[in-house]
């Protein structure tokens, strides 16, 4: 089994399973904060999947996509945190 097959048939399904578990928490809640951290986790796992896919397909440009995804995910989480706090704050 070469590296491409290993990533596409073993690593990717495992990461996808992690994504599914995060989505279950996203759907279940129960609080908005739970949903926010579930979204944050999907962003992080998505970044890992992109990096793994960059190796499998020998496409280093995809790394830039992963960096942008990390940036967006971070900004989204911070914005959500501000919004959560502002909603009941001073």
């Amino acid at each position, binding site marked *: 089994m*070469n590296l491409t097959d290993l990533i596409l048939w073993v*690593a990717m399904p495992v990461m996808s399973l992690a994504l599914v*578990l995060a989505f279950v928490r996203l759907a279940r809640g129960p609080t908005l904060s739970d949903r926010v951290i579930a979204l944050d*986790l999907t962003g992080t796992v998505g970044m890992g999947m992109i990096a*793994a896919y960059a190796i499998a397909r020998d496409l280093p440009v995809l790394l830039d996509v992963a960096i942008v995804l990390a940036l967006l995910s971070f900004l989204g989480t911070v914005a959500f945190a*501000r919004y959560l*706090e502002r909603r009941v704050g001073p």
Partner: protein
Amino acid sequence: MREVISGVLVLIGAAFMLLAGVGILRMPDLYTRMSATTKVATLGVGSTLLAVVVYFGELGIVTRALAAVAFVLLTAPVAAHMIGRASYFIGVPLCRETAIDELRGQYDLRTHELESVCFPELELQLPDLQVGRLRIPDGAAAAGRTLAEIELRRRYDVSVLAVCRGSHTIPNPDGDVRLLPGDELILIGPPERLDDVAEALKGG
């Protein structure tokens, strides 16, 4: 060789991400879920990006991958802290098995500033008096006795303003309120006598 190391690193990363997914699903409350996902998922992504570093091994790509690792390592704790802080303020509950919430009472709920509770207005008008907070430790002599029995007012010139027990507060407690280990007393009195009370209540 390079492919083998990189394959192992990707597998480790995938395993960590799966663990993060299990953690976010199985942990009992938001704060433990957050602890599971942020740390573990960050490790997973870091491991996968290290696999990229090992696999490509060219300067431009290595730099970008390491920059991405540094970015994730820097931002994950910040994001987690902001979400945890905001959730604590809006009252997201801790799980029922929680033994101690050390933050309770330490945040000013109006300004959202972290500080020990103080009563500046009160101290302005009463320069000789101080308001203090005192926790009854496990196995203290005072635990299990009533306020009347420990005679704080007669022996130390110190009055009890309130007793904080678990999530509720007994304001202006009577002499027949029985102290339990873990209770927190809000006391008012001369500063040096407050220290005496702290010493006396600590003793076993």
